[in-house]
């Protein structure tokens, strides 16, 4: 099965469900919490939060800087035309072009990494319930092992209105 989950009406009940799951021995990397808005006031929002996007952005910027410097220096030398007595490799103007391409490198690196690592560009979200768009918070375990599945079945129904669902 793709996963087992339940829908919760607010952040507090979702937090209780997550804590229950942890008590039943499910690790954070197995827990999936899906909401229609980031809920940073709750602890569960930090699951899967570590990312290295800042380093990627800096790396992208560095690549942009190297590419742009090569572009301007080599092309100015390649076509060495005297314009108004300015030096052939004119650093003041070059800095402007280098700056722009550095920022562009950082921007592309960030967006590319975001799309690549967020699981975007998949045809159909595999483990998802459209009720999330009505404000429900979905807490569950995606592609669970047998042990995690039984743990989830015990942990998720925290009150009578919460029904367990499987995909």
């Amino acid at each position, binding site marked *: 099965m793709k996963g087992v989950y339940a829908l919760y*009406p*607010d*952040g*507090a009940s979702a937090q209780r469900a997550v804590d229950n799951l942890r008590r039943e021995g499910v690790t954070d990397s197995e827990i*999936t919490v*899906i*909401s*229609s*808005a*980031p809920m940073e*006031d*709750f602890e*569960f*929002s*930090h699951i*899967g*939060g570590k*990312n290295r*996007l*800042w380093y990627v*952005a800096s790396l992208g910027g560095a690549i942009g800087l190297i590419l742009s410097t090569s572009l*301007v220096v080599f*092309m*100015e030398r*390649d*076509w060495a*035309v005297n*314009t108004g007595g*300015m030096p052939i490799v*004119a650093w003041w*103007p*070059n800095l*402007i*072009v280098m*700056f*722009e*391409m550095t*920022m*562009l490198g950082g*921007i*592309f690196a*960030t*967006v590319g990494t*975001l*799309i690549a*690592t*967020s*699981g*975007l*560009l*998949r045809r*159909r*979200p595999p483990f*998802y319930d*459209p009720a*999330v*768009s*009505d*404000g*429900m918070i979905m807490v569950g375990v995606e592609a669970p092992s047998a042990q995690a599945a039984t743990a989830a079945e015990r942990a998720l129904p925290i009150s009578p209105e919460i029904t367990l669902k499987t995909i």
Partner: protein
Amino acid sequence: MRATENTMAADLLHPLLNTSWRFYALVIAFGSVVASGLAAVSFQAYYGIGVWGIHNPIYWGFGITNFIFWIGISHAGTLISAILRLVDAQWRRPVTRCAEVITAFALMIGAMFPIIHLGRPWLFFWLVPYPTERLIWPNFRSPLVWDFFAISTYLTGSLLFLSLPMIPDFALVRDKTTGLRSKVYGLLALGWRGTTSQWHRLETAMQIMAVAIIPVAVSVHTIVSFDLSMAPTPGWHSTIFAPYFVAGAIFSGIAGLILAMAFLRKFLHLEKYLHPIHFENLGKLLLTMSLLWGYFVFSERLVVWYGNDAAEMPVFWATQRGLYAPLFWTMVTCNFVFPVIVLSIKKTRTILGCALASCTVVLGMWLERFLIVVPPLSRKYLPYTYSSYWPTPVEFTILAASGAAMVLLYTLFSKFVPIIAIWEMKAGEHPSPELEPVAQQERRLGETHA
């Protein structure tokens, strides 16, 4: 709380799901103005720049004025979205997307002008550095090539800055609609689910983009100002142009944003989401920028007047007392006198007051661009070549069409994408009372809900 959120989502999705006759009327009206502008541009590309009013020595007129003006308007999004996001100002939430959309479309419109004002516009791609069999590269020393890099970086960055936060909203529309609409929005949503790791990555990416886009925005209008200040023309060759233009851009951008928000509030019935406090805050920003603009104009003109340079004084007097004086004093009234009065007094700093001040600022800033570009060219070094500039109907048509294009694009955008970021509004809602009690004594300025 879910009920409030769902009402909010329903309200903000209403323009996407229901079309009134006003939408069609707007599209047809502004679409025809845009069409006539396209016809004017084709006419001019076919016959030559001679159908415009420019002549020796005033070789730049409306074309460059409009270019600088629209790039200036585009600074709205960056200030509101990026800076307010970085300082975590909560009142930005309803206005970020309105602002980012202005940036994206104003940039697209502005970027058209350097192409259409070329003598041989079909060769505009020669500004792009790419290996060609002609074996020639663009001249990196030219400010126009810097323009190419700056505007393409800013446009790319702004479009991405606009599109990334649209993804969760597209997912929302995907879930709430059926049929073809659901499929199309599903494609646009790129398979977004809303897992905690996705939210983290999106928010981090937005922070990075905000940090990246602010220096790019400052550099873009600085580089646009370099189009003028790199030439030794009296009245252009001024070191103050770089910060002067950036301040003017932010100024006109905020005015454009206030106007857009005022119209959206009225036409899309967003009174519950765009509150008077938002307009008040933006009005205070507009007031600050108006004072800053006045400071820059005063500094620049004081130095010119005090220096009494033989080449610069004819330009100075032409704008102060001569041919261009009516435009100059209109500009001062529109940019400084009227906004400072209206926006300083709390009683007049209403939505209507801010909108009126923004109208005059938009007009005044266009006049300012015109007065920076044309009078120095009309009074260059050799008095034998002094001249004056009179625009033609073709140029007016193109100017009107650029404004109409902005309105048209904006109207179309608000039909297909929620103009207020729904997930950002939800994220700004108060969290669970158990975790963070509602502040009892002092309300934070500009709460997202009453």
